[in-house]
């Protein structure tokens, strides 16, 4: 089967070295299409392929059947045995021209038009609402993991993979960026789908700023930077099951979000604050965000 993969997909270029491996651009020799190949090395034990990998890949395959416009197509899955203890699972995705990071870098000096940002955000939220209603969390949303086609279509990438990796992370010293992590993850409290909303909020701000909103250097520093903007939450909002105490942070009042994202309009600012809410239970959900006044506002387009 190793031959199967390497024969059918002819590597063209290295696209990016992520924390977990390299992504290749390749050509499908059968269809002539470009694809993106991404491999995970999975440690197999006495019981074969780990249950987590089997379940997660099955889940990705299942979501694939819905053919959602804002989720990257998973075209094929290959598994190759490398040794008795290791199997390489290769996921074959449709190739998309660029990621959101590049897209923002290439934006004109004046920045993206407000209507463009509104459209990108709506698509992002649609993709997210779809994942969340299928009980899938992304957990690693950031501009590099969001793809944008040359027609401006947003496609979420890397979803679900986070969980495949996390089971085997002990093997690679992983440095995943902190900048899009919500407070509950930084505090190592329990978390669920609201994590993705937080990250999307950070990305929303970044679309205007064209640089990240919170650039912390450590987990504590990251949380400090967040609190400088949204203010120190009340005692009862601070999770109880965490080691880092609220007293650790200075008592700060929230600052106007427009100090950090000056170009955002009034409705956008209101939505952004609903996404950057400290308490995950009070944070807006993807479906409710789609109903938000910001997306109904035609003025943004002009």
């Amino acid at each position, binding site marked *: 089967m190793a031959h199967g993969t390497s024969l059918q997909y002819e590597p063209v270029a290295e696209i990016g070295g992520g924390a977990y491996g390299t992504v290749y651009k390749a050509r499908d020799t059968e269809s002539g299409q470009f694809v993106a190949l991404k491999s995970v090395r999975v440690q197999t034990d006495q019981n074969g*392929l780990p249950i987590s990998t089997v*379940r997660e890949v099955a889940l990705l*395959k299942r979501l694939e059947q819905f053919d959602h416009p804002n989720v990257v197509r998973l075209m094929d899955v290959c*598994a190759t045995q490398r040794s008795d203890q290791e199997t390489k699972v290769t996921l074959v995705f449709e190739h998309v021209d660029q990621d959101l990071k590049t897209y923002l870098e290439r934006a004109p000096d004046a920045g993206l038009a407000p209507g463009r940002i509104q459209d990108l955000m709506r698509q992002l939220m649609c993709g997210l609402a779809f994942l*969340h209603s299928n009980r899938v969390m992304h957990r690693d949303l950031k501009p590099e993991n969001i793809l944008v086609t040359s027609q401006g279509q947003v496609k979420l990438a890397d979803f679900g993979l986070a969980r495949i990796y996390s089971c085997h992370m002990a093997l690679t010293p992983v440095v995943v960026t902190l900048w899009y992590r919500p407070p509950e993850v930084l505090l190592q409290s329990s978390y669920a789908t609201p994590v993705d909303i937080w990250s999307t909020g950070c990305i929303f701000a970044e679309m205007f700023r064209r640089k990240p909103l919170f650039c912390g250097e450590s987990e504590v520093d990251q949380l400090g930077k967040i609190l400088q903007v949204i203010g120190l939450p009340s005692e009862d909002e601070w999770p109880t099951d965490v080691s880092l105490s609220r007293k650790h942070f200075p008592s700060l009042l929230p600052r106007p979000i427009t100090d950090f994202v000056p170009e955002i309009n009034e409705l956008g600012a209101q939505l952004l604050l609903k996404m950057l809410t400290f308490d995950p239970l009070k944070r807006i959900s993807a479906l409710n965000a789609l*109903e938000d006044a910001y997306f109904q506002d035609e003025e943004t387009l002009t």
Partner: protein
Amino acid sequence: MARTGFCDSKPLLDLHKKADERRAPLRSWYACGTIDCWQPVEVEESRMVPVKMEPVHRWERRLSAQTNESIIMGFNEDRLTDTAADGCVEENMLLYPQLQGFPSLQALVPSLLRHEVETALEKLDLIWDRTFAWDMFLDMMRTQAINTLPNADLPRDFTDATRSVLVDWLIQVHEILHFQEETLYLAINLLNRSLHVIKVTTVNLQLLGMVCLFLAAKKEECLLPEVSGLCYLMDHTYTKPQLLRMERKVLLVLKFDLSYCPPLHFLLLLASIARCSAKVVWMARYLLELSLLEGQCVVFLPLQLAGSVLCLSRQILQEPPTPEGEAAWCLASSVHVGSETAVLRIMHTLAGAAAKAHTRETCATFIKFSSPETMYVSVHPGLKNIAALLGVCT
């Protein structure tokens, strides 16, 4: 315990002797028929390794049902433009094909049925939150066809009889390992699909069957048996590396696609809406499991099978009707389970199978459902003259 009776029972031993005489390549199967062979797995806890469970997350469900609906319908429309032919149909067509073409979904779906479906899914513990119940049901309806086979063809040298011996053996292993019922339905679905695409020799059939059960367990179960335990159950006919190689092979040909909506879920859902008695449900479950043994049944949709066995079960048991019961049955019947011909074919096939079940060699299911826990449904006298009964109603 039902299992003791089942293992002690004579038919089981006879069965394997006969199967052995008939088909030499399946030679090792007889070894699994004796109780000494099964027992260690049942009692020895060490064979079961706890699976690392992901922390259970409480997902956010604060969404209104209505916004949800608009999302599902929204992207349905996206789909319909280019995939109208691949079996994905709109909700109202799925439920009420006769009403096809009407514009408003809200007006079409009787809120009563929706309410019943939501309640039933919640009662059956199939959903985490009621907000998503209706979406989940629509999803079940839409995706059930995906992994159902287009035809009942089997690979060369492989007959329906061989297939049922294998399925019967898997039913026994499944019971010994205390797996969930869903696992069995998924395992047999994986087996059916694999048989269509993998070239497998008769010698390796048992291995393929075991791997399908193992993969189904990886998807569904919390406790997983060790591979060495599975090899033991096959009397060490195959080695561990052989089993693991087959596992990879099956995953590859199935492209890791292990999604399947078991007919059991549709059965429990319909039965719950129809307020069926426990006995009707047990009988239907028995008939549904019998359908696994029938090679001809692999082409039917899970919902068709579920609807048909429920119908058949009611006819067999002939419980006195009550007004509430009839009303509930009417409501459940408003879910379109399939064409009348398909339903009748399933009912005829299974009525025949149930009438002969006690005489067959592949009788693990018959024995399983003859226990007091299952209300003795497989030995119900009504099964004997069911063929005649069916003649009346057709």
